[in-house]
């Protein structure tokens, strides 16, 4: 059974990296947002959200990520999104212009390079 999303968090060189595994919809977007915000400290310069293992993302997830990007910007922090090439969710991210608000990268490694 394909499951609603869970977050697997790691830290790379002081930067939190959150793998969003599974599906994001209106039932879980809000709690995922709280989990993601909880990964940030005042000393974090950036947050990387890995959408590679995300199997579904609709406007509730897009809205969550827009909001997160905005909040981080106000705190002089940056949100990076990892969207692998050929991922079906890439189209939704482009159509909504989310990629104009939060830079997207094909791999976590490439996202982290931008903060080094």
């Amino acid at each position, binding site marked *: 059974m394909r499951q609603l999303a869970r977050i697997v968090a790691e830290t790379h060189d002081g930067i939190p990296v959150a793998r969003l595994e599974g599906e994001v919809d209106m*039932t879980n977007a809000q709690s995922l947002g709280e989990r993601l915000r909880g990964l940030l400290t005042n000393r974090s310069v950036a947050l990387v959200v890995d959408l590679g293992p995300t199997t*579904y993302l609709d*406007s509730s997830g897009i*809205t969550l990520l827009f909001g997160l990007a905005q909040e981080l910007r106000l705190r002089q922090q940056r949100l990076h999104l990892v969207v692998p090439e050929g991922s079906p969710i890439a189209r939704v991210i482009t*159509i909504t212009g989310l990629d104009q608000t939060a830079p997207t990268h094909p791999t976590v490694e490439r996202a982290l390079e931008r903060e080094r």
Partner: protein
Amino acid sequence: MAWQKAASLSEIDEGGVIGVHVGATPVALYRLEGAVYATHGICTHAMAILADGFVEDGKIECPLHQGLFDIRSGKALSAPLTEDLRTTWPARPESLVGVRHLLRRWLRAHGASEQEAYDILVACQEACANAVEHAYGPGRAHFDVDVTHRAARIRVTVRDEGRWREPRGSHRGRGIALMRSLMEHVDVDHTDDGTVVVLERALTPADAA
């Protein structure tokens, strides 16, 4: 009937399925949590080899029309998805995941590519989310999702009996815009009796994709 060797245990991966013949009978062998199960090798619906199907969660999904069988009991859990889809759901956010999974399987059974299925899924969910979020006060709380496949076009109809409310805030506004970008044709018709959202999109033939 005497014992016959069908296969070695090592040939079946955990959670996997292989097709073998026992005499002239095609058999599908499965390994689930260490135990081995066997079913007839051919789907009960049409000439499809079950061993080419997809094992998930103790179930085998037929590769041709996505009929679903319980591996342990052999019970048919879901009819082949060849027909038009006509479904009714409680107007609750929890319904969305059910709509999504059924529609994904149905679309794939009707030849939609992964990207096409995904796009249609997102658009349909926006319409369903509207039914759930906006259409209802207290009272009747269901919505219908019907899907047809005619002349290489997918048509999704989401119908509720509540009153449509114009999207508020950027979230639902974004959802509607998304719906319009992902589909070729979007029609929202709201009357005193309820709201009908019709979404249409052509599928690319598999050999052209």
